[in-house]
């Protein structure tokens, strides 16, 4: 039994579309989701796939059917097709239907956009600063000094407004698990919102080409319970209290010895974990960054002056296999003098 070719095509197309849509919905396309914004965006993607698959199937099916049914067979070398010049009704349909479909998709996408960018009153404001090639974060504190850190820690279920700045060139602050990103642009402050919903550690990626170290400008965000977040905040403010003791040895050019040295090294370890660990592995600090040299071995036998230079002028000496210009060269400005003293003391203690 031979059916009309259009009927055959509709059946084959419907089956292929159904299979395609099922496959598209079954496959897990995205990485882990950890924010409220992920849900609507992932659903939008599913809807786009449900609409897209039949369009692709339509074009492919007609093409394959035309090849199968209408290809030139031996003896037809001089034959032409029928001189059909057009069909106004058909042309109106394939102009109007896609137009309506696209405007509907836009309306839906707009609704999703409004949803994911909704403002909240109880939002937590975190300032993010991109520089070649690391992220820094600033947590403004009510009535107090803002907390500066290179570790991003967020409480679960609290809406966060990231205010994003750039120090040198354009970067892009992206947490794939949150599904949202925004460029960090010199001269202006950009904003992006996310509400973390799942505990865990997720990658933070720079998505805009920013130079040599762009590929390694990766770190992570930790989503913790509100209680753990408060504890973390307090730990961050604590070193400020210990500043008085650290300050006493600050002028000593790293000659810290005896009892003060232990404090200094503790401050240094803390500074290392939050500022250096996302790029450097160091067994003692328990960090596992891979962008820069593994300091567990690379620092063997270096004296304190060399260590200090490694921190404040990183391009003076480059470990073999690594490049100049990747490590930020402004730690002298972004870290306090006692933090650097601490780092030197700490690194000297672990590299012996």
């Amino acid at each position, binding site marked *: 039994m031979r059916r009309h070719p259009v009927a055959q095509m509709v059946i084959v197309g419907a089956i292929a579309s159904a299979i395609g849509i099922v496959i598209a919905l079954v496959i897990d396309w995205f990485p882990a989701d950890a924010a409220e914004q992920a849900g609507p965006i992932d659903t939008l993607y599913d809807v786009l796939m449900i609409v897209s698959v039949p369009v692709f199937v339509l074009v492919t099916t007609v093409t394959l059917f035309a090849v199968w049914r209408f290809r*030139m067979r031996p003896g037809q070398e001089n034959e032409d097709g029928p001189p059909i010049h057009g069909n106004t009704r058909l042309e109106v349909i394939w102009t109007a239907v896609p137009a309506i479909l696209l405007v509907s998709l836009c309306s839906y996408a707009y609704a999703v956009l409004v949803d994911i960018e909704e403002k909240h009153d109880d939002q937590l404001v975190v300032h993010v600063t991109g520089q070649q090639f690391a992220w820094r974060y600033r947590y403004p504190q009510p009535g107090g000094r803002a907390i500066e850190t290179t570790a991003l820690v967020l409480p679960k279920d609290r809406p966060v407004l990231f205010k994003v700045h750039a120090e040198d060139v354009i970067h892009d602050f992206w947490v794939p698990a949150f599904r949202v990103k925004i460029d960090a642009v010199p001269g202006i402050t950009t904003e992006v919102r996310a509400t973390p919903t799942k505990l865990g550690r997720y990658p933070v990626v720079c998505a805009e080409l920013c130079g040599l170290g762009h590929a390694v400008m990766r770190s992570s965000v930790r989503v913790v319970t509100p209680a753990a977040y408060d504890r973390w905040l307090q730990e961050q403010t604590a070193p400020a209290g210990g500043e008085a003791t650290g300050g006493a040895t600050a002028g000593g050019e790293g000659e810290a010895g005896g009892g003060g040295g232990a404090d200094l090294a503790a401050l240094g370890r803390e500074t290392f974990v939050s500022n250096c660990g996302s790029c450097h592995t160091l067994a003692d600090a328990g960090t596992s960054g891979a962008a820069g040299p593994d300091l567990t071995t690379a620092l063997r036998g270096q004296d304190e002056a060399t260590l200090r230079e490694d921190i404040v002028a990183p391009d003076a000496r480059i470990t073999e296999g690594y490049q100049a210009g990747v490590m930020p060269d402004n730690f002298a400005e972004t870290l306090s003098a006692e933090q650097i003293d601490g780092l030197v003391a700490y690194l000297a203690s672990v590299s012996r």
Partner: protein
Amino acid sequence: MTAKLRAPGWYRSGLFLLLGIAFSWVLVGVGRLAMDYPNAWTDGEAITTVSLIAAPLFFLVGLGCFDYWFYWASGRPTRAEDHSSHGAESWKDYFRVNTDHKVIGIQYICTSFFFMFVGGLIAMLMRAELAQPGMQFVDTATFNGLFSVHAALLIFLFVIPIFAGIANYVLPLMIGAPDMAFPRLNALSFWLLPVAGVMLSASFFAPGGAFASGWTAYAPLSTEMPLGQVFFTVGVQFAGAASIATALNFLVTIITMRAPGMSFFRMPLLVWANFATSLLVVIATPFIAASQFFVLLDRALGFNFFDAFVGAGKDGSVLMYQHVFWFYSHPAVYIMMLPGFGIISEIISVKARKPIFGYRMMAFSLLAIVVLGFTVWAHHMFVSGMHAWIRVPMMITTAIIAVPTGIKIFSWLATMWRGVLRLDTPMLFALGFLTTFTLGGISGVMLAMIPFDIYVSDTYFIVAHIHYVLFGGSMLTIFAGIYYWFPKMTGRMYDERLGKIHFWATFVFFNVTFAPMHLLGLDGMPRRVADYAEQYATLNLLVTIASFMLGLSMLVFLYNMVASWRGGPRAAANPWRALTLEWQVSSPPPIFNFDAVPTVVGGPYEYGVPGAVHGIFQSPAEAKPTTAGSVATSPTRE
């Protein structure tokens, strides 16, 4: 020797090139002395920057691009009518300033393919590095240079100019003209092209390496790059100037030089497509020129366009660069696609032996794309931090521009329906284009949706999308067009079997190379990275292997072209039984195209209409009683 140095040609151009460098050196030296700057005569960076602008112009003067105009301007006798610079008798004629549009077309095509192979090899180096996580072959500075040069070469030295080349050859023939409107301008715009190509490729030898800020060259990264960046900034100006001059030439040629009887609605769609493209080029290309001049001024002379550190008292605007850049570079996507649409219309109608379905809508949809194409640029900037409201109108226009594109795709499908399909190489590429370009179009509509774009922007999803549009779209139409007009251009037939092998290898490995990139992007892999997280290793290895196979398939094409051009069987004047005018003259056509001026008496695609002709080689007065009557009664659209 003196005679050789005085006559236009390679010797004189070499001499002038040296003169140009000397001129730049003196200019920089005198300027710096006057300003009391240090190292007046030894500042290599300043000398190189000025040389990059001045030396190519000296070179072009030496080559003879400006001879006629200089003779005319100085009141000396010009060599107007001897046609000594017209046509090619040996291969050497392709290496000089030539005013024959057919020679220029071939020059364009060969130059573009040369740079395609360079750009393709660069892509393979990149894929080799990306085969595994970690760094194996190159350092990140080189890697950033590789993808930047890859994109710049394939956009500015391959896709855009090769369409200009194909149209250069075919378009005057199609409209029944003896040449382009401005043959000397045509020659000049071709010779600007190798200059741009050499400059972009040579940036690898600049101290500090090639320009490494991507083909988008976003400021302020680009204004802070080493010297290699200037090679891009200036190189793009030469490619852009070539593009603008050619587009003007096409516009004037199409408007003023059509054969008698060829109304706008009797023009083949390839002509329509190039008309639309040329409008885009003329309006949009000055914007990329401006954006790169801004970068050059910022970088070389310390201007303040993009230096935005408010704290340091700087008030430049970083976002302005992106607006100006994309106001060209989004229309550029259509500059790289519309001529391909024209090629596909020709091939599908001829190979399906049916009139193109909905001719007028096909022409109007091109114009709709031109107009809408200027209203969508900021969809590249949904995450750039621009004003949030701009995103919404840009999303709507971006989605709507899929409507005219859809009209074209559906019309091609309807053209094939009930036809008699010849499935030879050009048609296979056309069919392959239909399916892969549809995928690229679909992912384009997905990317228009702001929330989804916020997620996948700057990821491998974008890399996949752009390659489905520019490789699965433009590149396949280029191959289709090259095979289709190969007999006309060379007078030889290509090897059909090798052509089919080329198609299937390209089609399969193209998809295996670029389809997995969608998955990588959705899974969170950012683009333009030399190194990536462990979780993306498997798919990247697959992509790398497929890309090498894709590269190998190009060798089949190269061999087929070279061998067939040298020793393929002679081609008949009209091997495809096509109606358009270029097939009504010998293969290759006579030096001035038509021995008698053709008269157009019907539409270009009247396949299946008994006795239909598009053009006849008689004067309109003679033609009327004999042929025109039979066509007038045939069921045309009018």
